[in-house]
């Protein structure tokens, strides 16, 4: 221990002796706090179990709602069938402008009464202007 440390130790020891001589007793401090401790205790005890209980109640509520809203197996099957057959089925849906992709000539052509191999050949319809005319 250096001289400085020795001197400081001595000085602080004197201060400590002075402080301890004027210190309030432990009993005084403890008794002063006793009422407050008793007042705090019930609140604390309640708070300890309240939080987990609240979380459990919320979780149980969510499970009940989920079970109540879940469809039965028959309901699920009918919903699947409806989706498969419905016009809403995205795999069967046709674009409204699909008709524009068909040649106008073929669209306006009168369907043949009797099918022929020549049906594929372009036959001018009387009175209908062709683009090349």
């Amino acid at each position: 221990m250096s001289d400085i440390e020795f001197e400081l130790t001595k000085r602080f020891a004197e201060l400590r002796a002075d402080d301890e001589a004027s210190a309030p007793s432990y009993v005084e401090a403890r008794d002063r706090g006793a009422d407050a401790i008793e007042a705090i205790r019930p609140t604390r005890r309640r708070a300890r179990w309240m939080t987990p209980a609240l979380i459990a109640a919320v979780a149980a509520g969510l499970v009940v709602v989920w079970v109540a809203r879940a469809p039965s197996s028959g309901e699920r099957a009918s919903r699947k069938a409806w989706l498969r057959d419905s016009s809403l089925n995205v795999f069967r849906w046709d674009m409204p402008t699909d008709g524009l992709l068909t040649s106008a000539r073929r669209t306006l052509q009168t369907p043949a009464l009797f099918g022929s191999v020549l049906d594929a050949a372009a036959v001018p319809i009387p009175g209908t202007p062709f683009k090349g005319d």
Partner: protein
Amino acid sequence: MDRTELERQLERLHPECWGWALACTGRDRALAEDALHNAYLKVLSGRAEFDGRSRFKSWLFGVIRFTAMEELRRTSRWRVGGSERDVSDAIDPSPGADVTTEQAERNAALLAALAGLSPRQREVLHLVFYHGMTIEDAAGVMGVSIGSARTHYERGKKALAGQINEVDVR
């Protein structure tokens, strides 16, 4: 630790706790009593729980320090180093019968010198020289790293020695 054991430990450490509470409140006796009372309340009611990671005394001093800071904030009476007060106020006007005037003067000189240090330096020196703690334990109480506590200790020690000499010369 059960209530009986807590009480036993608190009673054993009470004189030291009182000194530390005084140091944490700028030697304001009323504030020190409030801080100590509230700290005991926290410990005994379980609001502050000892987890065994440090020595009980270090942990308790940490609780007292924190509570004292709360008290100071609450009363808006935080003083840096207690320098706003006359040092003579810091000495209890009714010291024990065995405390001589000369000792009271020496204590006043020490407190005046301490008032010239930074709060951290003052804390670490108090913990080491007043309470006989190691710098490691003091760092734990102050909530700083050991390296930081050591730096505050070394600088504070030199500054305090210089200030005591100055006051003594006067």
